[in-house]
C-alpha cells in the first residue's frame, strides 16, 4: 500500500508523517500523530466531533483527505490551552456545566474558537450558527450556548442560571 509523506503544523509544532492514500485526516491525527482530541463520531461529516481548524477555518477532519493538509496549519482542541492556562472557552465550559459525557466537547470547543477568533462578541444566533454542525446528545445545547456566550464576555454568565437553594419565583 502506497504511503505518502506529508508535513504540517499541528498546534504550532511541525509534524511529518506518512499517510495512506485515501486516509482521512482524523485517522492520521489520532493514530499516526497521537492527537486524540478530535473524536470519531460518524465518519460521515455530520456530527462535528472531529472538527479541527485548518489555517483558521473549521473543517471536519473525517472528510478531509489527509494528504491535502501538506504545508497547512492544523489546530485541534489540544492546542486550546496555553500550557497550564486554559482558554476562556474551556473555563466557561467548566463553570457552566456545559459537558456531560465530554465526547462532543473538543469539537464543540474548536467550532466555538473559530467563531470567537473572527467574532469576539457574537450574538446568540451567531453561536447557534457556529455550532450547528456539532451534535450533542447529552446537554440539550443550552448550557453550551450559554458557556460560549459567557466566554465571549457577553454578559451572559452561564453560572447565573442556577438560582441556588431556596424557592424562587
Amino acid at each position, binding site marked *: *500500500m*502506497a504511503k*505518502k509523506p506529508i508535513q504540517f503544523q499541528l498546534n504550532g509544532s511541525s509534524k511529518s508523517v506518512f499517510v*495512506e*492514500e*485515501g*486516509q*482521512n485526516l482524523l485517522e492520521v491525527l489520532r493514530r499516526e500523530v497521537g492527537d486524540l482530541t478530535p473524536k470519531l463520531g460518524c*465518519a*460521515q*461529516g455530520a456530527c*462535528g466531533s472531529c*472538527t479541527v481548524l485548518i489555517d483558521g*477555518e*473549521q*473543517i*471536519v477532519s*473525517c*472528510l*478531509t*483527505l489527509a*494528504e*491535502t493538509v501538506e504545508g497547512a496549519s492544523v489546530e485541534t482542541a489540544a492546542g486550546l490551552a496555553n500550557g497550564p492556562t486554559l482558554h476562556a472557552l474551556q473555563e466557561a465550559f467548566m463553570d457552566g456545566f456545559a459537558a456531560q459525557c465530554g465526547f462532543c466537547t473538543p469539537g464543540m470547543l474548536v*467550532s466555538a474558537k*473559530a467563531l470567537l477568533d473572527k467574532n469576539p462578541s457574537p450574538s446568540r444566533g451567531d453561536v*447557534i*450558527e*457556529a455550532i*450547528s*454542525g*456539532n451534535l450533542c446528545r447529552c446537554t440539550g445545547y443550552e448550557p453550551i450556548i450559554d458557556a460560549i456566550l459567557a466566554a465571549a464576555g457577553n454578559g451572559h454568565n452561564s453560572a447565573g442560571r442556577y438560582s441556588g437553594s431556596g424557592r424562587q419565583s
Partner: protein
Amino acid sequence: MPMHSQVFSQIGEAAHALSSNRSSRYFGGGTLVMRQVNAGNQSFDTIIRSTDPSLKQVQISGDQVIIGASVTMSQVIASRDLDFLKSAASVIGGPAIRNMATVGGNLFARSPYGDFTTALLALEATVALSGGRSDVPIADFLTQRFREPKPLVISVSVPRPRDGNAFRFLKIMRVKPMGVSLMTIAAHLPQSGGRLANPRVAYGSMGDTPIRANAVERALEGKTLDAQGIAPALAVATEGITPRTDSIASEWYRREVAPAHLERLLLGTGG
C-alpha cells in the same frame, strides 16, 4: 481494493485520468467522496483531484458569473460577486461543511442533498466540462452526471439576475439552521411591467435530482406576484412531478405541502 490517490496540477490531466479509469472518482471538497471512502465503498478505488488554480476562480464575464468548480460554499458566501447565491450557499451543511463543500461537488450530490444545484437550476446555469462542452445546460447535465465516461466539471456559468430580489431561495428543514432538506425551492422571477416574464422555478429533494417545476413556470408566466396571480401556479405545484419518499417525509407529504411552501417563497412570507 486499496485506495489510490492521484493529484494533477492541470485539470486536463485529471480529466484524462478520470475518464480512463472506471473505478475512479473525482475528489472536490471531499464531503461526498470521503464519506464513501470511509464507508468502504467498493465501486471505486481511485480518487483523483486537481490543484489547478483556475478551479478556484470566480470571474465576471458579461452578464454571467463563472464559478470555478472548487469554489467552496464559504467562498460563495464571501464573494461580493455572488451575493445573489448567498442564501443558497448559507444553508449547505454547517460551517465546517461549507468550508469544504464545493460548487462542483454539489452538482453530484444526490437527494436530499444538492440544494445549491437547485439554485443553479432555477438560474439556468450552464456547466463547463473538461475536454467537452463548455455550456451544457444544467438540466441536461443532471440527467447524465453519473454516466461514463465521467464528466469533470471545470466551472459553472450563472446568469446574474438583473434584479437581485428576483432570485428567491427557500430550503425547508425540520432542523435549523443545519438540517437536511425536506424540500428546496429556488425561483428566478424577473418581472416586466409588473408581470412575471420567463419565471424559472426549481425544486430540490422532490425527485432523485433537482428538477424544474415546468407547470408552475407556465402558470406564473405573465402573472402578477401576488396571492391572486400565483394561485394557478400553486394549483399545479407538483404537476408532472413524483416527489420522493425518504426518511424525512413521504411522497404524499411532499405533494401536500409543496403549494404551501411555494406560496411562502413566492410571496416572501417563508422562513
